[in-house]
């Protein structure tokens, strides 16, 4: 998906009504009347949401007799989901890995400096090299 495509998909997904519409369409095609029913919103307002979803490629619309049916297009959602990791999930998983890393750093530091008393909080910006002589690649 192009960056602009992703942008439109996420712009479209940022709205709870549009997410509700997509969830409804997951159980089958529907016309605008059926899609309006669960929301406290006018049919023209729902139509505007449908236009946004259509522009993002998340739905397609076709005519059947007099009804215009909306159909969920799965692919853009799947592509968006492929890189989408929940924000909290992202950080919690990262921080759990950091917990594990910190415990090894602490041990290595403790063995590197035998007396490791820490009087209060040291506000001094003390930057040390990585243990085991790994080089710091930032400039």
């Amino acid at each position, binding site marked *: 998906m192009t960056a602009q495509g992703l942008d439109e998909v996420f712009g479209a997904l940022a709205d709870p009504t549009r997410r509700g519409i997509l969830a409804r369409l997951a159980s089958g095609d529907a016309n605008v009347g059926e899609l309006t029913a669960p929301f406290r919103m006018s049919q023209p307002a729902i139509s505007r949401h449908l236009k946004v979803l259509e522009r993002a490629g998340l739905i397609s619309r076709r005519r059947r007799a007099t009804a215009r049916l909306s159909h969920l297009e799965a692919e853009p959602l*799947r592509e968006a989901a492929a890189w989408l990791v929940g924000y909290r999930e992202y950080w919690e998983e990262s921080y759990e890995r950091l917990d594990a890393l910190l415990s090894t750093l602490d041990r290595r530091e403790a063995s590197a400096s035998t007396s490791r008393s820490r009087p209060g909080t040291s506000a001094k910006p003390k930057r040390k090299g990585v243990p085991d002589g790994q080089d*710091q690649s930032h400039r």
Partner: protein
Amino acid sequence: MGKTRVTAEPGVPFIETEREFDAPRDVLFRAFTDPELLVQWMGPRKYVMEIDRYELRDGGTWRYVHRDADGNEFGFHGVFHGTPSPDGMVQTFEFEPVPGHVALDELRFEERGGRTIVRTHSVYQSVADRDAMVESGMEGGMDEGYERLEELVDRLAPVRA
């Protein structure tokens, strides 16, 4: 669930997180700023992280890439504002597939009795930008529509790791 607290109030384009670690803050600061250490923890395990550049100074730029098992790459980049220190750091953050949507991230390290609380405060350009970034797992902000969408995405992508 885990220990990271995420706060995203409705109507304002901020995300705040808070997490306590069992280490002094200079160790935390190192883990957040030393590229050799950063790649060992930043991001979910399913991604390999590579740091392109990491110029830890006022005005310095950073860029890293998360790569998944299929070779898909997701790049992020930004600029440090002010000199990063164990007190904290301020930087911009941009997810490359969505260019132009730049967040301003502030990190604070607060040490208490040998433990450190890491707080982040992110400011987005709009609530929509913020919501697109959060998308899931928000405390308090999770609405039914989103829960249903999660189920939907699970159904659509059942083999997703």
